[in-house]
């Protein structure tokens, strides 16, 4: 077996300059005439060390990062000789074992949905097949659909978009609808700022998502599946287009799939940059070619969705979990998690943390494990102040609650939510009032305008928060802010409005002293707010 050089070239790798690294590796290989296979892979998750290069000779695998183009020849000389006595900086070597269990960032993770991300070439169907690809689909097609649904229900898989509804139950409801045709939608409109789980999964292992959808199609009796992908993810769209073409050639999409009688086709719908389209009814309107505004539920999409037909909507990560459930059995998946929810959850760990990237852990893992053991604490060596979960719909968990287990119910008790997987760590140089204001800027901007409490309420809330950040707030403003939170939460149709107050409510709950300091003393304890009207809140 010759040497394999793997280079991570998904969006994060490219942002760090992976394309020039590929060029440098190619140039090196041409110059030295060494027999190697160069493979472009997705992201291994260790984005803080991008660009990542892994060199595998026979049974030795070494993972390097960050590898700039200038470092390429130094690193490769280690394997092909001729280094002329130059040494590779030991800190560039992240791991020396094929399973990376000597690299703390990866060793503490349990990879299920992201198992092949950064390992295989996402553009190669053969790579996926060689790693057990489409085996779960073959198994599923030999089972009656009811048994597939039962397996998914027994696995205790819950919606990974954040709402946490039982996936098996949702499939069951859609299956029972008499109307036909039925549709599937894969929600890849990952709009939460600070979240990139879906992007990494699609860019790194697109066939897994397609396989999950095909199994769902068999279980539900759906004939067409839409993949609604965010406009900001051009590489993900490219990977999916390629995977769909390969799936058709391989015979796992189209007519009579693998001789089972199942007909199914994939359609990619590119989003057009509207955060609200992550909400299922708005997303369906967008697929129908209309403005993406939400509508009243019930009827739920399972009953009357796209063009009024039963439609099953799941998140990318939910679909990506399905093949492993069928291959390893629902009991295995359920045992990974907690009593109420099975399996693993991927998080985009970012912010002030030392090691940031995509992290997948079993449900029930304490937040502290992610922040301190995997993330390595704050890169500033300052104390962790809070962890923000779920983006603009979520809330902040303060440092003293870091022992909270990652579970839908446990997190909700803190006022935060599981969310889709955004996890932003902040240290004590972040002003929580400014942080809440940041999220309100976002929701205010992204409100579709249909519900008045959301459209006007978020604007008013932002106004009050800005006033406080400028040192002009009063205690009356704080009361008004609390009342507005309640109005916006109860008076809005969709998740955007009902959850928009969460960042404000949780920061007021845990960091009330900071709000009071802004109002009473005209002071920003973190030193972030300028406390002068008409200036940018963040000091340059």
């Amino acid at each position, binding site marked *: 077996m010759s040497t394999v050089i793997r280079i991570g070239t998904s*969006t*994060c790798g*490219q*942002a*760090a300059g992976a394309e020039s690294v590929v060029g440098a590796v190619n140039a090196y290989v041409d110059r030295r005439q060494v027999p190697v296979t160069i493979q472009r892979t997705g992201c291994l998750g260790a*984005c*803080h060390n*991008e660009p990542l290069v892994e060199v595998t000779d026979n049974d030795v695998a070494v993972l390097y990062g960050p590898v700039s183009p200038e470092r390429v020849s130094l690193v490769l000389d280690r394997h092909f000789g001729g280094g002329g006595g130059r040494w590779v900086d030991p800190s560039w070597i992240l791991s020396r074992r094929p399973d990376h269990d000597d690299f703390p960032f990866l060793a503490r993770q349990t990879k299920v949905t992201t198992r092949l991300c950064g390992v295989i070439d996402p553009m190669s169907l053969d790579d996926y097949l060689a790693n057990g690809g489409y085996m779960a689909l073959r198994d599923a097609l030999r089972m009656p659909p009811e048994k597939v649904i039962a397996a998914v229900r027994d696995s205790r898989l819950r919606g990974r978009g954040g709402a946490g509804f039982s996936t098996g139950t949702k499939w069951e409801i859609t299956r029972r609808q008499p109307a036909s045709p039925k549709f599937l939608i894969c929600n890849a409109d*990952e*709009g*939460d*700022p*600070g*979240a*990139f789980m879906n*992007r*990494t999964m699609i860019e790194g292992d697109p066939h897994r998502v397609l396989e999950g959808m095909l199994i769902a199609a068999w279980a539900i009796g759906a004939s067409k599946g839409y993949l609604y992908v965010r*406009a*900001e*993810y*051009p590489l993900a769209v490219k990977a999916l287009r390629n995977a769909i073409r390969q799936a058709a050639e391989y015979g796992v999409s189209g007519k009579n799939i693998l001789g089972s009688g199942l007909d199914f086709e994939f359609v990619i*719908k*590119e*989003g*057009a*940059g*509207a*955060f609200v389209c992550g909400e299922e009814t708005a997303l369906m309107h*967008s*697929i*129908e*070619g*209309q*403005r*993406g505004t939400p509508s009243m539920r019930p009827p739920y999409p399972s009953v009357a969705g796209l063009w009024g037909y039963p439609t099953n909507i799941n998140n990318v990560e939910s679909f990506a979990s399905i093949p492993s459930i069928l291959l390893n059995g629902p009991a295995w998946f359920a045992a990974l998690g907690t009593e109420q929810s099975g399996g693993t959850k991927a998080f*985009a760990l*970012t*912010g*002030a943390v030392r090691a*940031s*990237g995509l992290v997948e852990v079993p449900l029930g893992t304490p937040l502290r494990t992610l922040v301190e053991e995997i993330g390595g604490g704050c890169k500033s060596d300052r104390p962790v102040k809070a962890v*923000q979960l779920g*983006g603009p719909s979520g809330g902040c968990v303060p440092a003293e609650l870091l022992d909270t287990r990652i579970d839908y119910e446990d997190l909700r008790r803190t006022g935060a939510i599981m969310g889709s997987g*955004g996890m*932003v760590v*902040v240290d004590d140089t*972040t002003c929580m009032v400014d942080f809440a204001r*940041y*999220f309100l800027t*976002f929701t205010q901007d*992204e409100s*579709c305008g249909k519900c008045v409490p959301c459209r006007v309420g978020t604007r008013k809330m932002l106004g009050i928060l800005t006033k406080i950040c400028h040192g002009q707030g009063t205690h009356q403003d704080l009361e008004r802010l609390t009342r507005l939170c309640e109005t916006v939460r109860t008076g809005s149709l969709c998740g955007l409005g009902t959850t928009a107050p969460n960042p404000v409510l949780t920061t007021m709950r845990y960091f009330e002293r900071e709000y009071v300091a802004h109002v009473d003393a005209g002071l920003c304890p973190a030193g972030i707010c300028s406390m002068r009207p008409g200036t*940018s809140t*963040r000091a*340059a």
Partner: protein
Amino acid sequence: MHRRVSANPIRRFNYQGDPLAEPAPADLMEILDRYRGQRDALITVLEEIQARYSFLPAKHLQYASRELGFPLAQVYGISTFYNVFKLTAPGRYQVRVCKGTACHVNRSSAMLDHLSEKLGIHEEETTADGLFTLQTVACMGACSLAPVMVINDQTYGRMTPDLSWEILSELVASERPRV
């Protein structure tokens, strides 16, 4: 005889014939023809028009409305609802500064302010030479490399205000020989 002037502005409108009397340009028709009769295709059509012309020219929206049978109000509604659609021509380089949470915490706003000052334009504006349009984007999903800047399709991570301006300056320099 006394001539009455109507107060109705429409009466005074100087009719110049059908603005769409000319047939639509061939490359536009090629896009429209592919989606004729598809009721769910409007967003996709506009995305394709924008991909070809780099923005949505007003006349092209009118052609799309007439050829595909969507009311012009609906076409206009869609083109203003979604953030990706632009109704004016962007610069040769669309510079987008990420405003995602991780970028915010890592001070991407300082980079935006710096670029805005150096280019002498605000957000959503284009420089007089038509080279740069300055925009912000909600999140590019490259949060581990925050703060992030995107120029056309190229993503640049681990930026600082000075570094981002350096990259823009290089682009300016690369443009010069052509002029």
